[in-house]
């Protein structure tokens, strides 16, 4: 039913059908006063319905004409290609990992990172929250970070450690490449890095949903936020739910909102996920939590796992990146390249 596409209340829809308006075209061709008297609503409400109907039928009529697509909010693939060339990414401080990611965690995309406890998910989250602040002069985005903590694993001492190491690396870099220019010293202080991380502690799934709803307003007021990290998106949704279907719907809505945020504000959204066991083909396998429908919700999916004694990251799902895995390590300075000398990137 075409009328079903209009974002109006159920009773108004019912009245439209009862009065004989079954297609959008029929609404679009009538006048406001006729509509108002036919379905017994005020003229302003009738005008609203008319606007919705004409917008939608314009979409139908102009399928095939490029200029009209742009008028109704679409984009051609060529324009998107040009945009993607200039889209930015946030480094993970591990060159191997950045390589398989095509430069780093991409802005305008939702990336999910999951793994067993202790593999380094929170470490990567904190590293990204610090790296997004690397100034433009050093190849970074110079942005701020939002860190949404659902488990209480955000430890400020560790953030300080990573921030200090990042500043040291930056000054070493400027030392090497700008030896002649003394004035190129790094002016950042670890406290200013801490100040640019907005921290929210979420204690229930309702707070989590409320926060994601509120982020639209928050990011509008803080336009320099370039990354949102949710650590972890799973925790509250694993404990309280008896109604699994409701959980799937709520998670779906939440992930749609996050994707819209990523696209509208050109920022990166990183969701950290836990693991669970799944019975597949007679044996138990590890898989990321929250179910099969959730696995469709993110743009990219990275799984962190142990390969012998080394930590590896594997790109499980991505529309543009090849499936590959790269080693990384967690050091006192944060995420860095793995120190083993064996062959680096393994194409799968």
């Amino acid at each position, binding site marked *: 039913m075409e009328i079903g596409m209009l*974002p*109006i*209340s*159920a*009773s*108004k829809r019912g009245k439209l059908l009862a009065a004989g308006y079954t297609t959008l075209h029929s609404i679009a061709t009538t006048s406001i006063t006729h509509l108002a008297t036919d379905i017994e609503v005020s003229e302003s409400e009738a005008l609203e319905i008319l606007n919705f109907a004409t917008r939608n039928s314009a979409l139908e009529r102009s399928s095939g004409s490029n200029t009209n697509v742009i008028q109704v909010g679409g984009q051609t693939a060529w324009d998107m290609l040009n945009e993607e060339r200039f889209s930015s990414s946030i480094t993970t401080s591990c060159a191997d990992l950045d390589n398989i990611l095509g430069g780093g965690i991409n802005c305008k995309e939702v990336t999910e990172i999951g793994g*067993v*406890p*202790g593999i380094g998910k*929170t*470490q990567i989250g904190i590293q990204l929250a610090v790296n997004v602040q690397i100034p433009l002069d050093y190849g970074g985005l110079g942005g701020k970070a939002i*860190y949404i903590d659902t*488990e*209480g*694993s955000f*430890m*400020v*001492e*560790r953030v*300080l*450690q990573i921030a200090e190491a990042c500043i040291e690396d930056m000054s070493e870099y400027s030392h090497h490449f700008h030896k002649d220019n003394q004035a190129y010293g790094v002016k950042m202080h670890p406290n200013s890095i*801490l*100040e640019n*991380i*907005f*921290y*929210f502690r979420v*204690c*229930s799934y*309702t*707070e989590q*949903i409320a*926060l994601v*709803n*509120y982020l639209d*307003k*928050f990011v509008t007021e803080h336009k320099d936020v370039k990354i949102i990290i949710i650590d*972890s998106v799973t*925790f*509250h949704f*694993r*404990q*309280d739910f008896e109604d699994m279907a409701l959980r799937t*719907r*709520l998670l779906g*809505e939440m992930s749609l909102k996050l994707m819209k945020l990523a696209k509208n504000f050109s920022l990166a959204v990183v969701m950290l996920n*836990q*693991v669970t*066991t799944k019975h*597949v083909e007679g044996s138990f*396998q*590890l*898989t990321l939590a929250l179910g099969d429908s959730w696995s469709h919700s993110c743009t990219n999916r990275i*799984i962190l*796992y142990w390969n012998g*004694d080394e930590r590896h990251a*594997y790109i*499980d799902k991505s529309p543009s990146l090849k499936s590959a895995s790269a080693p990384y390590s967690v050091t*006192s300075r944060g995420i860095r390249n793995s120190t083993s000398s064996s062959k680096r990137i393994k194409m*799968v």
Partner: protein
Amino acid sequence: MANKLINQLGLPKSIANIFAARNIITAKAALSLTEFELMELLDVGMTEVTFAMAHISEVVCPPCQTALLLMEQRVRNESLAGHLPTRLKGLDEALCGGIPFGVLTELVGPPGIGKTQFCLKLSLLASLPVNCGGLEGRVIYIDVESKFSSKRLIEIGTKSFPEIFHKKGMAQEMAGRIMILRPTSLSEFAESLHRIKVSLLQQQVKLLIIDSMAALVLGEHDSGASRQQALGWHVSFIKSLAEFSRIPIVLTNQVRSQIGDESLMYSFQARSHSTKEDTPVTFDSHLVAALGINWAHAVTIRLVLESKSGQRFIKLAKSPISPPLAFPFNITASGIVLLDDNGIEMKGPEINNIHCQGLSLRFLVIRSVECILSEHKNFFGKIKP
């Protein structure tokens, strides 16, 4: 926060009445429905629903802080920026000061390895006056398996802090700050937690120890699903307790054996694995922590105590602030003592493994029997350890 009533949130009267008419009274009820469902239920347009939900979300959403603010608060308000020193130098350094406030720290290991000894020492340390490095507060010790020995507590106290304990009345004051609760079932435990929450508010309690979490949960439910549900609720509650009261919470966990050598793999690993030669299937049993993978995610710091070739080790298996170190230790009259303050760095998932080689067999048998007997207290009457 989420239980706020919708009519108190400052929404325009018309929309607030519509919510009430459809029996959506709390913010939680409104947020538990998708916006499309709300549109259908309330019979209003999308714009009104979005506006109302944006307003409700803004009120329910937690306050924004910056990481800098967090750090300054901790440094200003809490002793040692939010850590309880364990007096084990190597461990304290690795943990940036000691057991952190506001998060769950788990001690896991085979029976008889020293978990309860560690807990006794910690409760003593928390009750010490501030000028001696303690928190000068009360301790709530939830003793599920009746392992708490006040005699041993005083012994540890007099051997570790002789100058304090030999003063008149100090031993009584210290021991008087430690409250022991003995819940016999999970529901009784939940009730005591609610009562504890109230006393935490009054700022008296500085440490909560639960010894052991596994005994509490494993005794109750048979099937996996209901046990996981019950555990899940309790974990959330304990975590929020820790968070909101900013005290350290220490829990002990048991081990169980797992047959076979197959570690769990992901599907993409299984694919590449099956092309290699099949490794012979071993049927050695080894130890893993009880309570499952969900629990392993929920704790913030996991300390594994194990015994390898007769030497006991305490390992930092999971910690966001420390490298994976293992420290050899012994248990003396004054509690746990580290033999080497520079830990051994362990590579890879080895740090999560739990060994039990070399603990005196007679000792193990006695401790295991004690555990079994304490569970069947009703049958055997009062037990003397």
